[in-house]
């Protein structure tokens, strides 16, 4: 069935958030669906780390300000950890 627009948007948002956190906050890519629950807590933790770095409200949720920051053009070097 055609995906309802909001569900599609939600999918895109989750994709944006995951790829941003993988690229810049060392979020490990979870490929095993059964660890999804743990993955979500892990994702919220990383999201808080990113919100903390940028001085955003630390909610652990992809709110508007957080998504706006994630869409800004930027340097490809991670904000935490080494880049070698």
């Amino acid at each position: 069935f055609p995906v309802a627009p909001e569900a599609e948007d939600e999918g895109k948002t989750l994709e944006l958030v995951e790829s941003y956190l993988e690229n810049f906050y060392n979020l490990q890519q979870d490929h095993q669906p059964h660890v999804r629950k743990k993955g979500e807590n892990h994702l919220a933790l990383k999201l808080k780390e990113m919100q903390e770095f940028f001085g955003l409200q630390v909610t652990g949720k992809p709110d508007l300000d957080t998504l706006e920051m994630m869409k800004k053009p930027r340097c490809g070097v991670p904000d935490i950890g080494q880049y070698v």
Partner: protein
Amino acid sequence: FTAGNPKWKRNNLTYRILNYTPKMRQADIDEAIQKALSVWSNVTPLTFQKVENKEADIMISFAYRDHRDNSPFDGPNGQLAHAFQPGEGIGGDVHIDEEEDWTKDGIGYNLFIVVAHELGHSLGLSHSSDPGALMYPAYSYTDPKEFLLPQDDIDGIQAIYGQSNTDVQPTGPITPQACNPNLTFDAITTLRGEIIFFKGRYMLRKHPARVETELNFISLFWPKLPSGIQAAYENVERDEVLLFKENKYWVLRGYDIAPGYPKSIYHLGFPKTVKRVNAAYSDETTGKTYFFIADRYWRYDENKRSMDHGYPRKIVSDFGKTGRVDAAFLKDGYVYFFHGTTQFQFDPHAKRIIGLMKSISWFNC
């Protein structure tokens, strides 16, 4: 700092430009990279020598998508470039995403700004959370002619390589913090119900309905405006804001800079002895605008579009406060004058100062 505190063991480093993007003239690319290197050599003992046909410490190249360093680029926008911390081989190298719109000005992405940031990584710096720092991860445009390395970046790089060998140590702009009690302002104006506080290359934006104060670069909204705006006022009737720097002024119509500006302030009727305006506010109930210069002020009639006769007058004669005014704005029938970290609330009807506050009283600190 980067984990492990990587740094170059010597101060005289080499760099090589491996290739060029066709989007800019080669000479402009060379100039942008040279200027980016000087940003760091000006504040440290580091020197950078360009080499051609051999391995250099810092290899600078334009790269496309997956360029075999395990960090593929992502096409236009998104990731603009990356660089590697000091070390052998790929260490210190700068990779620039070929697919971006590289320019030498404010359109697209300014190559100088991005390379200067990446070279910070090549020298051992990581990202800064100071939104005004060069090492802040997100891109923001600054006119290369006006660029000054922020103090946050100077502190960082000097902690790794020490101070520059010059007699006078360079200092840089510090990002304004809304609740810093020592905060002073260059200019303040209302803008469609908001209040805009100008400071250096920043503007603090206070919306009555929002608790937080938003800090932005002036160039984020108005790339054509210079930093260091000295006076500003809103003409509510005409939905315009006039912004002053030295003997020029710009007009903001709605949210855009009107074409044909800047113009000379002498068009408004100032004598040539006036070189700049310190502060200004406009009273829509009377159609009069007040310009403050040193210890005197002029009054301008917005309807007749000319200066009123009998001016300038002494500020102290009519506003009850001595000394100069840094900034001023009118809100809800009161005029707020700023001098240093002090704010005076003036009642134009009673013609006297009725309140004294800190400069940061508007920021809910």
